[in-house]
Every structure is written in structure tokens, then in C-alpha cells.
């Protein structure tokens, strides 16, 4: 039995972590499944099916978005950054180092989404207060840490004392 042709598909052009990609995707494929299953970038996670948890957060044209809430075809023409792109040169970012030093992760499943949301925040607001961090991360659920050390890590990076 052969894999069927999808009901409808489209070729999209995207830039992912700086690399230009053309790909034919089924019209109904979610962006998160395109990133994970088609591109093999499995750092972006799925934790719910309702857009609540934020584990799938990536940057689309510089903005943090939940990639389970977009179809892949909607990302056509855009520039996408995933967690794998943060330390592209193998050098961890200050935020990634701060997550390690402040023990801001346990199971690590929400971590990619947290990092992408927090990176977007720090790009817009280099020195966020604790409240600003909590507001920026309210769309990302963590079930391990109680957020204490996550918030601490992000604030520390803003204060230049992160890592």
C-alpha cells in the first residue's frame, strides 16, 4: 500500500535558523509538525492540543508564536527560528547558560518554548523586571519548576548577572 497523495498540498519557502528551505507540505499540516516531522528539528515540542502550553514556541519573523496554532502554509515566506538555532555556533547564549546555572529546568520539555519566549522578551526589553518576565512567560506552562528559577534566570540575564 502506498502513501497517498495529500488532498491538497503546497510548496512553501521558508528560512529556518538561517537556512533557506523549499518544501511541499500538506495544506493541513501544522507548523509544529512541519518543523518536527518534516525538518527533523525535534527541539520544538508539543504539550497540548489547544494552544495553551507554549512548548512549541518558535520565532516567526522575530516574534514568538505557538507553532501549533499556525499551519505550515501560513509560514510561507517567513523566517523561522527554533531552539536549535539559539546556539548555532555551539556557544550557548547567556540565557541558555543562565537556565543551567539557575536550575531553571528539570525535565526540559517546556524549556525550548520558555527559551524562545524569553529570548523574544529580552530582544524587546533587555532589562525586564520580574513582573514583566512573568507576563511574557504566561503562555508557557512548566509543570516541574513552579517557574521560580525560570523567572530568576531571565531576570538575571537582563541584569547582566545571568551567566
Amino acid at each position, binding site marked *: 500500500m502506498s502513501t497517498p497523495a495529500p488532498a491538497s498540498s503546497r510548496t512553501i519557502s521558508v528560512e529556518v535558523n538561517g537556512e533557506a528551505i523549499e518544501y511541499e507540505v500538506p495544506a493541513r499540516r501544522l507548523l509544529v509538525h512541519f518543523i518536527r516531522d518534516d525538518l527533523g528539528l525535534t527541539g520544538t515540542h508539543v*504539550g497540548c492540543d489547544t494552544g495553551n502550553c507554549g512548548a512549541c514556541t518558535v520565532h516567526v519573523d522575530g516574534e514568538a508564536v505557538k507553532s501549533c496554532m499556525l499551519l505550515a502554509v501560513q509560514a510561507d515566506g517567513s523566517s523561522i527560528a527554533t531552539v536549535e538555532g*539559539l546556539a548555532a555556533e555551539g556557544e550557548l547564549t547567556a540565557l541558555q547558560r543562565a537556565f543551567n546555572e539557575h*536550575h531553571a529546568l528539570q525535565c526540559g520539555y517546556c524549556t525550548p518554548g520558555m527559551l524562545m519566549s524569553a529570548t523574544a522578551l529580552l530582544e524587546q526589553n533587555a532589562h525586564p523586571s520580574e513582573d514583566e518576565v512573568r*507576563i511574557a512567560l504566561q503562555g508557557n506552562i512548566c*509543570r516541574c*519548576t513552579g517557574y521560580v528559577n525560570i523567572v530568576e534566570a531571565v531576570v538575571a540575564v537582563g541584569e547582566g548577572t545571568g551567566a
Partner: protein
Amino acid sequence: MSPSNNLLQGQGSTAVETGAPEVLEKGYIGQSIPRREDKRLVQGLGTFFDDVRRHGMGYVHFVRSPYAHAKILSIDVSKALELDGVYGTITGDEVAIHTDPFFEMSVEPGGNIKDYALAVGRVRHSGEPVAAVCAATRELARDAADLVEVEYDPLPVLVDAEESLKDETILHDDAGSNTVWSGVFDWGDVDKALAEADHVVKIERLHFHRFSSTPLECAGALVEYDKGTAEWTLHCNHQMPGVGAIWMAPALRTGIDKLRFVTQDIGGGFGNKICLHPQYVVLCLLARKLGRPVQWTEWRTDQHTANAHGNERTFMDIEVGVKADGTMTGFKVRALDDCGAFPRYEPLGCIIWAQVTPGMYGWRNIRVDFTQVCTNKSPVSPNRGYSRMQHLWLTERIIDIVATELDLDPVVIRKKNYVKTEQMPYETPNGCFYDSGDYAAALDIALELIDHGSIEERRKEAAARGKLLGFGIGSTLDSGTNNFGQSTLLNPDLQFSGNNEAASVKLDIFGEVVVTLGTVPQGQGHETTSSQVVADILGCSPDQVNVRRGHDTWFNSHAGFSGTYASQFAFTGLGAVKGAAELLRAEMVQLAAAVLQAPEEAIELADGFARIKDGPEEAALPFMALGAIVNANNAFLPPDFNPTLNHRYVCRPYFGMVDTEKKTGQLTLTYATQIHAAVVEIDPETGVVDVVDYAAVDDCGIRINPQIVEGQVHGATAHALGAALSEEFVYDEEGTLLTSNFYDYHVPHALDMPPLKTGSMESPSPVAPLGAKGMGEGGGGGIHCVCAAIQDALASAGKAIVYTSCNPPHRVWSMLQDPESTRANVSVESR
């Protein structure tokens, strides 16, 4: 770079080229070294089960019942099979032919229940899988599942345990009753204690609600079948594979060695990933039937609806004896557990609470009449604090209700009745031993953190703003390293007792120390803490210790009870690591002594070298030399000396026997202490509870890595606050779950969490290999203290009694509107 082995002949010197390891101070145990797991995880380079791909794999989607209780009249998969790209299906009828029912823990009547991997002839909870479809893509599998036609004939639905107890509708005909198990636990003389008390406080009903810690990664697996060897490999996130295999192998009519469990990174567990055997058996059958790897990733809605909830318990007819001076003499209670549609692991919940029978208090007379029933709700499984949390919530509720009714100070009554530090180790009325701790001192730390002296002043200040302020304490125990022999209290025929965990440590050819664990971490940092222990024992840096990720049955480093559950890693997991590392160390010393021609007593392992203490600088062998001599350059070793530098150790704690008549015995070995304290403000207009100040004090003995311990305290507290204020699995009368996703089932977000203050003390365990107690499940303290704080806040507004463990705004508002209906629940008989 080969080590010189002419030293065996006593010639030459240590002419060995080495990359000398970094010289570091000893004593990694007790240091908050940053976690070794993080580097991959912060780059998105962790490997979770859903990241594993295989050529030609099929995606599985379950067809689930929309009814909570119904007969299955017919299942027609033909339309699904016609869809191009569908690889195949499986139904309950096939499951009934190819597998045996899972074994049941309980005696009759629960022991007669027949539980298969898919519904056979009847569904008993909404979302129960009745068939599964496998297809080329996730989307197609879902489409095809929609094409499976199932005809149901609805049956009456039971969503209330007390209704279920009446047996007017029977869920499992084979059992003939909805009761799974019942038994009376009676220690001391509770009737005498009540008769001699100056006050008897009676509470009609308390309810511990249904929720789960809902790990962010849902359940799932990729399963491969090897037709030649008839072996299955499960790339999965089961957190207790040892017991998973015990469930699965007999059902699949195969040997336990035919099931290879592989876990890598796991996205949280909390106990919810212990009961995955039904779904995994379906995957095994499909992989064999279709001759291809099959993959299933549970959807969030399915996880909430039909995976496993934490167990729900109703406490009835509570009577508590209190002396005039506030000394509590004992209590009796009728407990009714609702395990949902199938008991599975859950009959153990009928007895596991007994690890903490008296809570933290010195009362000696306790009677618990315990019954567990099935209902048409999701099955349950262990959930962080499993079964003990429910019971400890009861003891804490009792303390605070007694305090409210007899006008006693909650701090004073606790300190008066706590087991005292000078009584440690303390034997409970049922023969458990609280190993160490100082509850009153831990409470004092919490009170200081929360500035207890200012509560009345803050209460006035809040009142001026129209808010009701309340303060509450939650004292709780995290009992760890359980004795599976307690299962014989449930069913004397069960052949389980004791506990075990395994690890292996070897020194490899280039001097790398390699550790494999039987445990199955889900975020607890086992790679880091194991490396700290091994580094201290072998005298090297944690960076020289490679702890392999996850669990793999083929590592051969597991034991029958392997897994991460029941707060035991610090004892059995690290105990196994320690044991294996010490065996390796002894052999390294022996080998170095032979090479350096020195007595063994003269050899020390330090800084990555085996050397002669106070000897010349060149009398030192790097680990690499030792590894190479044994593994690659061993012709010169004498024939009667055969070091392997590769050691497996099983940590098997001693428990003694359980007395099934008296229901006594050492049910668990370590007891970590947690004292939580909360200050809440309630808006009387809306019933919204705001936690404005919070402290958690943890005493888990020696902390291998204090930062990891504190992280566990934070996380457990977040679970407790979520459970106490919003997380609840609510069913309608049709048995439909109303809170099936993260919209309706609200877990704490960053904005919901109050600032947490943490404190700690270390009362080393006299029984644990490293003095370290298992910990991480003490979050129940948060539920207890929030309930107490709400009750305190409501004292000036009608004095309502908090009767349930979950208090979202609508429930608090109701208590404000009608405090009397809650007060009717409580009475005091004074003499």
C-alpha cells in the same frame, strides 16, 4: 599512550603519558553543581520518545468511547481500512483472542475483574479505547479513526463512589460488586481513646478531590517487533518499566526478557506514567500484526480524559479524641477510594497511606475502615504524593478542624502533638519507623520565613482593604523507599516484598568512568547526582563520569522494581550507584597496589589518579592506565588476578516481614519532612483566593545537590497550589469529563505562582546509604496549608469548615454565602 606495565615486575617508573585530569577538591556530595543534563536540553537536543523515528513506521490513533458506560454492540473498521494509507486496525475482540487479562492486585471481588488492553464488549469510562488505527501519517490515522463505526447501547452511569457502593449498577460482572477491596486497619484501642477523651470532635465528611500532575509531555511509545527473536523494543516514557513488564509480559503471553524498554529524556512523570501497560500492549500487538514499527503519541485531551488521574478519596464518620490540654489521643475514619473504571495499580493505594498512618503526630489509637470502589471515571494511577498525600491531608484537616472547634492555636496544637525529635527513630502504631527529623524545629523555620508574629497585624491591614486574611500550616511527610511487602496487606497471595534498584559502574579503556542506572529519571537530575557520588568515591571530577541517559533493559542494570517513583532514588538509586562504585574502587586500589608494588592501604584514589599516599610524584597511575591495563593490555596480569573494572550492584534494603494479621511492619524506610506555611487573602465579593506569602521547609537528610532538592520543593509546591485552588477533574452526571484540556483544567502559570520562600534543615537518615532521604513528593503540604489558611480566613466570616481539598473561587464563595452547611458537618462532644 599505552601505560607501562613493567611495574608489575617492579622495574622502571610510571612512565605513562596522560592528559592529566583537572585537579579538583573532593566532596562533590552536598554541592549545587549545575546539572549535566541541561546542556542538551537547553539546545533542544534532548531525545524524547516522540523524537524517535523509524523507516516505515505507522502512526496510531485510538478510537475512544464517547459514553461513560455502554455495551459495545458492534465495531466496523471496514471504512477505515479502505482509506489509502491506512496500515491496519485492531479491536477489543482481537485483543481478547491474543492476550490474557492483566493480573489484578486485589483479592475478591476486585481480583475477579477482567481488564484488557482495549474494551471488550463494554466500555466503562468516557474516552476508553475500543479500537486503534495505524496509518502512514498522524493526520490519516486520525481521519481513519473517525471512520470506525461503533454501535453502543448506553448503560446507567456511576460517577459517585457512595452511589457505586450500593451495587445497584455493577460495572464488572465478573466481580459481581463495585467494591474492589475493603479492610479494617485497627491499631491501639481507639474506642477506649475516644471514651477517655475530654472532647470528641466529629466530622461527617471530607473529600480529597481528583486531579493529576499532568506532565507536559503526554504518554506514548514507538514500538518495534523483531519477528526473528519475537522481541519487542519500546522506545517509551514509562517511568517504572520493571513493573510495566510484569503487567505486560504475561498478558502478551511472552517472557519478560522479550520486552526491551528504552527511555531517554522524559517530559515529566509524577506517577502518571506508571500505568501505560494497556496502551503499550495494543502497540505491541499492532507492531506484530502489521510487521512495522508503530508510534503513538497521546493527545492532551486524551491524557486528561482517559490516561490516569490521581485517586479521589472520601473520608466519613471521623471521630477524634482530644484531652483537655490539647493532646490528641486518636481517631477513627471510614475512607472510600474512587479508583475509576479499572483498579490497575490502584488497589495499592488502599494500603500505601499506612506508611504515614499517624501523620506527624504522636497519637497511638487509629482505626481506618477502608473501601475502594470502581466508578465510570478515568482509571487512576499514582500521582506525586500517592495515597499518603490524601491521608496526610486528612490528618492535617483533623488538626485544623479540632483547633478551630476547640479554639486552640494551630501552631501550639501541632507542637504539642508532633512526634518529638528525641523520640526518633519513632515507631508508629503500625510498626513503621520514622527515621529522623525535628518537626517543631522545621515549623519554626517556616514561621520565621513567613513572619508569623505579624499575622494579626497583617490581618487587620487586609481587613481595612476589604480582604479576609488567613494563615495556615501544612505538615507533611514524604515517605520513601517502600516495601513492596505491604502489598500482602492487600492480598496475602501476592509474591512481592522488599525493594531493589541496580546500577553499574565501570572504568573503560581510556579511563572514562561509565555509569548506567536502572532508574528512569523524568527531570530529577539523576545523571548529575550520580556523577557527584561516583566522583567522591573514585576520587575524580564529576566531569570524568559519564552517566548514560535513561533506562535501557539491555544495559542490564535494572532490577525487578526499577523505576523512578515513591521518593526512593536517593536511597536505592544512589545506594546502587554507591555500591557499584565502591566495588570498582576496591578493584582499582587492588590493581594499583599490584602495579605500584605497594600495600593496598598505601593507595589512594584522588584527582583522577591512583597513587601512593605521600609517595613520590611519579608513583601515580592515571585512571586511563588502570582502564587500559585491564581492558587492552592485560597479558602481564597474573592468572589468579582477574579484575574486571566493571561492577553491577543491587541495592536491596532490609525491611523485615509484614504482619498481615495485625497489618504492621516496616512499610517504608525514610521519612523526609516538609512544613509548608501560607498566608492567603480572600476577596469576599468573588471568593478568589490570593496566596500572598508562602514558605516551604524541607528536611530530606543529606542533600546530594541542594539546588536540585530546592527545585523539587518548588515544583511540588506548584503542583499543590494548582490542586488546592484550581486543578480538578470534574465530571457531569453522564460521566463526561468537563475539564479535558488546559483551558478548563487550569494549571498554575507564571503569573499564578506566589513568591516562594524556602528553608531547609538536614536530619541525616540513619538507615540510608548516604544519609539522604528520597524526596520530591512532599507537595501535599501545599494543599494542607492552603486549606488551613482558607479556613482561618473564613473564621471571621461565618467560620466555614473547609471540607474539600480543591477550593476554586466558586467554592470559597459558596462557603462565604452558606458557612452553616459546612459547619453542620462538624460537632463536638465535650465531657
